[in-house]
């Protein structure tokens, strides 16, 4: 065998567990999917139109590395109004290519070789690889269904060592749909401060909470100076394909994240940045968000009730657009369950295992689909479950 030119760490990095299912499902016909992690809504027309008009005007050059000043100011206004966190657009914001880039450059900016980064699982698939690629060691904290997948202070404390540098959390959570309310976060703050940790808080689903409003951990006294908030336009404004996100945090960290960003990216796509300005500053900004959240909420309730009815225990997710029912009663692993479901009923879901060990025994079902699609898929899952009995 000839030698591999690929870096060993990259070579050994496992592919995302989602990939395998994607490969199977995408070669099948007539698959009904509950498998996507992006909104089924289109970007509101006024945002698309604003972007088209900047193209017509020829605004097609690079922007400042950290993003258009107009956009950064709009982001600061929005964060202050919505989440009560205040940033300086000059020094404390960098616009990124989706929140995904934010995760990567945050890790690169803060991690020294051997630093331990606490990763709360189940979680989005890129966190651990981003820590590893930055030279850090991901240390997993597993959350549990009996705690509604909320991070418990004793779970956090138990994993802290002298090498721990930072805590990476994401609420509302993909894949569980869990949220952390004010009282939950409040209990973490003293531990974080006592151990002098940094927090990277991925809040991409902040606009999608049901029955309660999102609270950012950066809002608590003593936290803003040790928190990098990651957010973006994908979920709040149905703008996944535009690849636009941002990081807000202490000036020194943002300045250094921007250094990396400048070398590897230059700037977020210019057209998307103008679209982002329209998204945040248009008069009917919140109307669209509310309308979308209401539609998600209807589907969420339908799904939770239907899973419980078919005997797959499902805790009530209060955020994002996922339900995470337990399939332990079937005696199968999440991967077996999803694979058989796909083969037998042609319904695509994602095994909880793909989001970390603690996701085992669950499947992730997205409700970013029309009610018709959801009802159809649920009836097939119900058929599948009863065929197992």
């Amino acid at each position, binding site marked *: 065998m000839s030698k591999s030119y690929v870096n060993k760490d990259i070579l050994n990095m496992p592919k995302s567990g989602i990939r395998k299912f*994607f490969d199977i499902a*995408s070669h099948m016909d007539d698959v009904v*999917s509950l*498998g*996507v992690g992006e909104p089924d809504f289109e970007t509101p027309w006024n945002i698309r139109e604003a972007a088209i008009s900047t193209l017509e005007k020829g605004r097609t050059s690079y922007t400042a590395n950290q993003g258009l000043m107009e956009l950064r100011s709009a982001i600061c206004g929005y964060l202050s109004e919505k989440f009560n966190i205040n940033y300086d657009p000059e020094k404390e914001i960098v616009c990124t290519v989706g929140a995904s880039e934010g995760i990567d450059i945050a890790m690169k900016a803060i991690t020294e070789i051997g630093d331990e980064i606490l990763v709360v699982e189940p979680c989005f698939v890129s966190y651990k690889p981003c820590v590893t690629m930055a030279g850090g060691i991901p240390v997993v904290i597993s959350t549990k269904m009996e705690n509604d997948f909320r991070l418990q202070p004793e779970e956090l404390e138990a994993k802290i060592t002298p090498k721990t540098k930072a805590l990476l959390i994401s609420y509302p959570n*993909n894949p569980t749909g869990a949220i952390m309310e004010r009282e939950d976060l409040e209990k973490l703050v003293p531990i974080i401060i006592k151990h002098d940790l940094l927090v990277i808080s991925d809040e991409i689903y902040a606009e999608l909470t049901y029955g309660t409003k999102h609270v950012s951990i950066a809002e608590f006294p003593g936290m803003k100076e040790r928190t990098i908030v990651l957010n973006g336009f994908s979920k709040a404004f149905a703008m996944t394909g535009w690849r636009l996100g941002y990081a807000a945090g202490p000036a020194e960290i943002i300045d250094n994240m921007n250094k990396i960003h400048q070398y590897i990216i230059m700037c977020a796509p210019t057209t998307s940045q103008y679209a982002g300005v329209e998204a945040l500053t248009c008069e009917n900004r919140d109307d669209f968000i509310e309308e979308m959240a209401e539609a998600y909420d209807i589907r969420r309730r339908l799904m939770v009730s*239907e899973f419980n009815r078919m005997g797959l225990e499902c805790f009530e997710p209060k955020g994002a657009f996922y339900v995470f029912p337990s399939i332990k009663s079937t005696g199968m692993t999440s991967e077996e369950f999803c694979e058989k479901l796909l083969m037998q009923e042609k319904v695509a879901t994602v095994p909880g295992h*793909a989001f970390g060990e603690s996701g085992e025994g669950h499947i992730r079902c997205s409700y970013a*689909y029309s009610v018709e699609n959801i009802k159809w898929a649920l009836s097939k899952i119900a058929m599948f479950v009863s065929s197992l009995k």
Partner: protein
Amino acid sequence: MRTKILELLDRNAKFTVSDIAAILGEKEEDVEAEIRMLENEKVICGYTALINWDRTEKDFVTALIEVRVTPQRGNGFDKIAERIYRFKEVKSVYLISGAYDLLVNIEGRTLKDVAFFVSDKLSTIDSVISTATHFVLKKYKDHGKILVESRIKDERMIIAP
């Protein structure tokens, strides 16, 4: 619960009693009883699907007719409107402000059908002063739904993180 049920059915008439009960966190029998009451009170007047007939074989024409009328003493426009909306070909009648008085939406199998309806039945009503018939050539959007969307299929990846 009333308004919420109506809002849900307005959004999607295919919601079943058990769907609505699940969404609102109410008992099925309560939801069912409330819907029956809404039907009896004619708050819910019927259930219908929004169909894009242009995607089917079925052929028919729709016209919007502007009608100018002389209002009647004591009855205003209501009596004349009634004489028009009672025809089964007429799908909707609105009293409107502006250059004319009534906007009548009518459906027929052919252009001729509609033209004859206007000349035989509409124009002959005493109070009708004049009509202007506009045939619908293409429906782009109806009841808040875009009908001409070229993208019918979900183009998102089947599975994504």
